[in-house]
C-alpha cells in the first residue's frame, strides 16, 4: 500500500465493501486526487511563480490513467505520458513528491534533475517519459519482452496521446510489439489536439484504433470520459496480453479541457467544443453514477473532497520546505558512481 493510498480514511473503509464499491471509491478518489493536485499546480502554484518550467495537465482525461492503472499489478511496468498523473498515485507516489518535482526540489522524484511529469522510479516500475513523443513506445515493448523473458505473467502499459501516433517510434514500436507478440497494452488518450494541431491535421484516418489492424494488433475504442468503460476495455486488453496473445490497443476518446500547457490559452479551440465536453466531465459523471448505484453516499463524497483538500496544504508545505539541489552535485550521476 503506498502512502497516497493510505492517506484517506474514506478509502480504507472500501476494503470491507463489494469489489464494485471498492472500484467505485478508488476510481473516484484517484480521479479527484489527480484533479486537485493538477489544479493546485496549474491554477495556484504556477500563477504564484512557485513552479519551474512548463505545466501540462490532464484535466478532463482523468478516467484514462485511473481506469487503466487500476489493472496494474505490482510487477507490471507503467509508461505514463504527460497527462497521466493518477498512475503515480496508484503506484504509491505521494502528492508532496509531485509538488516538489514541479518546484525543482530534491523531494521530487528526479531530485531537481528533470521537471514536471518527466519522472519515474524503477522501484515502483514506472518509467519516465522523455519529451520526444512516442519514444517510450519501443521502450515499453522491450520491457514487455523482458517480462516474458523472465518467465513472468506481467505486462507493460504504455500511455500516449493522439499526436504521438504520428511519430516513427510509435509505428516501429507497434510493429515490433506485434511481431514479437510482446505483452504490452497500448492506451491512447485521444484528446483531439496535439498542442494547437487538431486531429484532422494529424492523421487522415478517423481513429487511432484504425491503425492497429495494419500491424496485426487488436484494438477497440471506448468513451475515455467513462472510467468504468475504460476499466473494462483495458481489462480485456490486459487479459489478452497476460495470456501471451500479444499487444492490444485501447483508444480512449476524450478532450483536452486546457491548453497544451499552462501558458497556452487554447484560443484555437472552438469554444463550443469546450462547452460540449464540459458536460461530459469524467469525475462528475462517475460521482453521480456511484452515488446513484449506492456505492457511495453524498456524505462519503463530501468527506473525500475535504480530506483531499486538507492533505494538499500539508503536501505543498512539505514540498516548499524541501531543499533545492546543491550545485556542487551538478556533474554527479551522469555515469554510475562506484
Amino acid at each position, binding site marked *: 500500500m503506498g502512502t497516497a493510498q493510505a492517506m484517506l480514511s474514506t478509502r480504507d473503509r472500501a476494503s470491507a465493501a463489494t469489489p464494485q464499491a471498492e472500484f467505485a471509491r478508488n476510481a473516484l478518489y484517484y480521479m479527484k486526487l489527480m484533479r486537485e493536485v493538477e489544479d493546485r499546480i496549474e491554477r495556484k502554484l504556477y500563477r504564484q511563480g512557485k513552479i519551474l518550467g512548463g505545466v501540462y495537465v490532464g484535466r478532463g482525461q482523468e478516467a484514462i490513467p485511473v481506469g487503466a492503472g487500476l489493472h496494474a499489478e505490482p510487477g507490471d511496468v507503467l509508461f505514463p505520458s504527460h497527462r497521466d498523473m493518477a498512475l503515480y498515485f496508484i503506484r504509491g507516489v505521494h502528492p508532496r513528491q509531485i509538488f516538489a518535482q514541479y518546484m525543482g526540489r530534491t523531494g521530487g522524484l528526479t531530485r531537481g534533475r528533470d521537471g514536471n511529469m518527466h519522472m519515474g522510479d*524503477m522501484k515502483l516500475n514506472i518509467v519516465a517519459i522523455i519529451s520526444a513523443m512516442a519514444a517510450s513506445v519501443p521502450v515499453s515493448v522491450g*520491457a514487455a519482452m*523482458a517480462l516474458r523473458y523472465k518467465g513472468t505473467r506481467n505486462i507493460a502499459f504504455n500511455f500516449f496521446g493522439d499526436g504521438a501516433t504520428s511519430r516513427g517510434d510509435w509505428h516501429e514500436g507497434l510493429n515490433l510489439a506485434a511481431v514479437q507478440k510482446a505483452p504490452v497494452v497500448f492506451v491512447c488518450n485521444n484528446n483531439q489536439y496535439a498542442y494547437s494541431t487538431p486531429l484532422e491535421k494529424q492523421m487522415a484516418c478517423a481513429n487511432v484504433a484504425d491503425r492497429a489492424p495494419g500491424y496485426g494488433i487488436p484494438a477497440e475504442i471506448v468513451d475515455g470520459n467513462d472510467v468504468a468503460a475504460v476499466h473494462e476495455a483495458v481489462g480485456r486488453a490486459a487479459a489478452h496480453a497476460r495470456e501471451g496473445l500479444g499487444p492490444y490497443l485501447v483508444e480512449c476518446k476524450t478532450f483536452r479541457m486546457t491548453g497544451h500547457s499552462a501558458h497556452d490559452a487554447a484560443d484555437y479551440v472552438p469554444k463550443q467544443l469546450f462547452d460540449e465536453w464540459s458536460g461530459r466531465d469524467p469525475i462528475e459523471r462517475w460521482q453521480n453514477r456511484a452515488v446513484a448505484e449506492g456505492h457511495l453516499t453524498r456524505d462519503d463524497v463530501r468527506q473525500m473532497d475535504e480530506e483531499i483538500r486538507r492533505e494538499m496544504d500539508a503536501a505543498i508545505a512539505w514540498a516548499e520546505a524541501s531543499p533545492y539541489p546543491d550545485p556542487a552535485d551538478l556533474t554527479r550521476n551522469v555515469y554510475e558512481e562506484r
Partner: protein
Amino acid sequence: MQATYLEAIRRGLWEEMERDPNVFLLGEDIGVYGGAFKVTAGMLAHFGEKRVVDTPIAESAIVGAAIGASLMGLRPVAEMQFSDFITCAYDQIVNFAAKCRYRWDASVPIVIRAPSGGGIHGGPFHSQNPEALFTHTPGLKVVCPATARDAKGLIKAAIRDNDPVLFFEHKGLYRRIKEDIPEDDYTVPIGKAAVAREGRDLTIVTYGAMLYVALDAAEILDKEGVSAEVIDLRTVQPIDDETILASVRKTSKVLVLHEATLTGGVGGEIASRIAETAFDHLDGPVMRVAAPDTPVPFSAPLEEAFLPNVDRVLEKARALAAY
C-alpha cells in the same frame, strides 16, 4: 589462441551469453543469417530464439526495446547492421538511454554494436565513423577497439558495464587482423588507452583502424631518426587524459589521427585538452590528420584520397618533428 578481430568479438559475446543468462542479442539478420558480417554466426542455434532476436528493420525500435529490457534488469546487446544506420536510433540513444541515470537514477546497461569505417568501397552509407556524434552526449560511453585482443576484452567489459556503451567495431579489421588472444575470461577496462609503441620524439594519438596506419608511419619515421610513440585510445568517451598527457610530457609533440572527418571530431577535443593542460610541455602545434569534411565517396580513387594514410601522417609528422 589465434583469432581474427571478428572472431574475437564473437567469442566475447558468446562467453558473456554463457556467463550471464540476462545477456541477449537483438538486431537485423543476426539470427538465421548470423549477421551481415557473420559476427553472430551460430549463436541462434546454440542459444535459441529467446536470446538471439531477429528484428524488423527498425533501428529506433531495436535500441528502444534494448533500453526497455535493460530497465527490467536484462543486458541487451543491440546490433546496428552498419554504423551508418545508427542515426535512425539517435533520439533513443542520446535522449532516452544517455539521460536515464542522471534524470531519475535508472541504469541502462545496453551495448550497441555498430560496424563502422571505410576502405571497403561501401560508399556514403556503409562507411562512416559516427563516434563523435555520441562523444558529445554525456551519459554515453564510446569504445573503438583496434586489436582482436581489445575487441574481445572491451565487448565483455561493455556488456558488464551499467551504463550505455556504443561499440564501434571497424569492419575493415574484421578479417584483416588476426592475432594471439588470451583464452581466459579477461576484460579490457573502458576508458583506458594503451601505448601501442613507445617513442621519444613525438606522439601519435589514434584509435580504431588508424592504429595500423600510425604504426606503419612510426616504422618509417624510425628509419628517418624520429622516434614516434603511438597511443591507441581504445575508448573515445571517456578519454584517458592521463595516458595522453604522460606521453605529451615525454615527447612534447602530438599528432592526432582518426578516420572520421576532421571538423567536430575527437581530434579537436584531444587537441584542446592538451593545449589547456600541457601547453608548457609543447614544442610545436598539436596537429591533426583526419578525413576531409566530405561524405565518404564510393569510387576507389576518391575513397583512397578520402581515407587518411601513411603518407599524410608522414607529411605532418615530419613537419612536427622539425619544430
